[in-house]
């Protein structure tokens, strides 16, 4: 059976083969606020556009000041890596993502494209209505493009597939709460990233099988438990580096980590409203957390629940949503006496610099010291 790692590494081949096998189309998207269920119900495979580590001699002419992820997304299109993508959707979200979307369309004007407005003000009474209206407009555009009807039955099926997918991924995260986890941070992030570029029905079959295997695994050695915050990640190099230093990323508060699996679509007669409510209600991204600060509380909750010893904040250079929130996150960590480091990264991770920073953090942490009194690591098995 294919592994998630293999799919992630060969994701373009996977998508092409899916297209050949099903005769259906692939829709690219950027942000995890994109309501994939609607596209899935239309028979599309939604694929998240991921950044790569590829030399870029294209984007400098067209972009300035963007984070390197969004530059690389454009670079990937320009190099033909995404030549199987039939359509592209952007939502109201980070402007750099919008810029990648917009500039890609200048290069490839024949792609199907849509801009879906997802309210930034998530809590207004009318946010639900405007989101519902936008989903309905989006569904109509898909129907027109594909010549298909998005029925309630198809939406129900999509909701079930996606709810199941999120539930299975939450089980993977639960396994990381153990004192001696049976799965590493790098393995989890590989699953999360692969899952974002896969047909979710197939991902669900793979996840079920993986879970039954993984639950029988011998736990890994007891080690320093770290939490990862910051800009979205597109590879697992940081998690691997952490593991090479005798620590493990046990939980994250990334938009494409816990942020995208935390809540489900609660069935309603009005399916589009149900889907809209799920996306309005998901844990706030740094950008959408613009009125009441909800991120801090959630970060602390995850930190406590997964019994982390310290925090790594890895921000993409020029990531303004996370840059703006840094103040609030630092404040939380300082007030709670939580050890942390912050560093900026490019699409590639500066290995030596990061190694030194993470070593510094680990050396600060005495496992158990920052925990709730009485908690003990005794009795941990070794892997």
């Amino acid at each position: 059976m294919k592994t998630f790692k293999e799919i992630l590494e060969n994701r373009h081949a996977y998508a092409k083969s899916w297209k050949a096998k099903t005769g259906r189309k692939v829709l690219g998207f950027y942000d995890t606020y994109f309501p994939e269920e609607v596209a899935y119900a239309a028979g599309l495979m939604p694929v998240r556009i991921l950044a790569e580590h590829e030399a870029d001699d294209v984007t400098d002419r067209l972009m300035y000041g963007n984070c390197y992820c969004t530059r690389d997304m454009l670079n990937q299109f320009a190099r033909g890596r995404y030549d199987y993508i039939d359509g592209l959707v952007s939502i109201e979200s980070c402007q750099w993502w919008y810029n990648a979307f917009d500039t890609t369309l200048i290069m490839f004007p024949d792609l199907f494209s849509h801009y879906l407005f997802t309210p930034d003000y998530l809590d207004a009474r009318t946010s639900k209505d405007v989101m519902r209206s936008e989903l309905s407009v989006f569904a109509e555009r898909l129907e027109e493009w594909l010549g298909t009807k998005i029925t309630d039955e198809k939406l129900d099926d999509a909701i079930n597939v996606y709810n199941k997918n999120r539930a299975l991924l939450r089980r993977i995260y639960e396994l990381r709460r153990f004192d001696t986890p049976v799965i590493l941070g790098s393995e989890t992030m590989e699953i999360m990233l692969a899952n974002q570029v896969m047909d979710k029905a197939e991902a669900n079959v793979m996840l079920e099988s993986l879970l039954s295997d993984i639950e029988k695994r011998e736990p890994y050695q007891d080690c320093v438990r770290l939490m990862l915050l910051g800009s979205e990640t597109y590879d697992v190099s940081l998690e691997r580096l952490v593991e090479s230093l005798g620590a493990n990323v046990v939980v994250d508060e990334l938009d494409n980590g816990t942020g995208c699996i935390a809540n489900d679509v609660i069935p309603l007669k009005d399916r589009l409203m149900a889907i809209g409510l799920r996306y309005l209600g998901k844990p706030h991204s740094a950008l959408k957390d613009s009125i009441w600060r909800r991120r801090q509380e959630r970060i602390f909750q995850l930190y406590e629940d997964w019994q982390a010893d310290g925090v790594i904040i890895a921000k993409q250079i020029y990531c303004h949503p996370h840059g703006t929130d840094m103040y609030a996150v630092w404040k939380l960590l300082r007030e709670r006496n939580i050890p942390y480091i912050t560093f900026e990264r490019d699409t590639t991770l500066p290995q030596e610099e990061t190694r030194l920073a993470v070593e510094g953090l680990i050396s600060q942490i005495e496992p158990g010291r920052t925990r709730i009194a009485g908690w003990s690591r005794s009795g941990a098995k070794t892997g």
Partner: protein
Amino acid sequence: MNKQRWETRPLEIWGKAKELRAQWQRSINEAAERPGAMLAHGNTGEFDWSIGFDDLTVIEDNPVGAMMASKSDAFSRKCRLASEVRGWGREICGYVQNCWGSQFLGYEMDDGAFPFRDMSIPFPDPCDQHLKRGQQCMDLSPIPRWGADYPMYLGPLDPKREQAFIDHTVYCYLQIIDDIERIFDHKFDDEKMIGSLNILPALREQALRISRLMTHTPAPIGQKELYSFYTLGLLTKVDPKETLDFWTSFADEVQWRVDNHIAAVATERFRWMEAHPSPWNFLKYFRYMEKYGAVCIGSQYSHIISGPIELGEDGQFHHIQRKKPPEGQEIRTREDAFRHIFTEARGYRFKDDEYCRKWTITDFAKGFHVDGAIMPLWRGGVGCTLTRKEQGLRLSEMGVHVLHYEGSQPGDRTDLDERRFLDQLDTWMESLGLEKLEA
């Protein structure tokens, strides 16, 4: 070798403009001190809150931060340092770092106490940094806060989407007013608000007169004059009647200058445009360019005061009018008034040109007969940079000479190499065959 071609002289309206700006500054400090007065952080561009709530002063951090950058490098550095130690880095807008840095310090440029905000009202804007910037005053104390959106979509006009967006925006604003009335026990004056709806269109008429007059050669005024006045009535709100009178007098004076061939730059021989704000700490480059006989006729950004405009087939800029509700009926209620305000021509709002009407940058260049464009590339404050490279390419394709320069953000001088910038200007001008007319 000063080849003066036209007469030039300072604007007579200067004194009045300074007076209005000072009046606005005073209103902030008074609102912070006067019992019962309310001071809010928020957006003032779309709606003048003080018309309905006569004791409410709303301020944006843009003009505050820009003024700090322009007036005191030492103080704005101190503010940015106060921000940086709390976690903000180079990608953060300089206005935000200056204004809220001052809040972190607790005092202002003149050593007076920082005027703490009583509430935070929404700042919906296409720029992500605007969206997030109300949180700093909320973090300080649990003041009332609200949100709103700046809904947008691409493609042809879609009545269904328009309706949903307008309903959402109107609801958000009505809720805020209800809450302010309830929480602060201040009554909103619906009648006054409805009566004021004609102020902005009237102001835009005068501003459009000025924009059109600036297409003349020689340009009667330049960007540096426009920058001195363009926030009056938009971001810096003072008495509406006084503001309108000011713009009418200003337009009359510009008309007089055109009629009498009074130039902004006496040696005008090269016209250039900009995109988005300039480095507020280093505005001397406008005068430096004048040594080459080069006049800046503004930017889409500085001509925003004219409202939604587009270039007509007659080569003139015209207002885009849109049928606004309630069509053919009198505006009777607060809700009618807000529906009227927010039914703006989509694609013609602030920065919509970067999303929906990308050709307008070339229309602007055409309408103002520009020879060149100086386009800043700002590293911080995403809204100041988005699509700037693309715009440069579009202008180059139509034959406009483009120069890009780099810096942090208009309110943050950290990364702007001033010497290098002037060298760039020299090289650029010389490459176009232009020598300095004066030393």
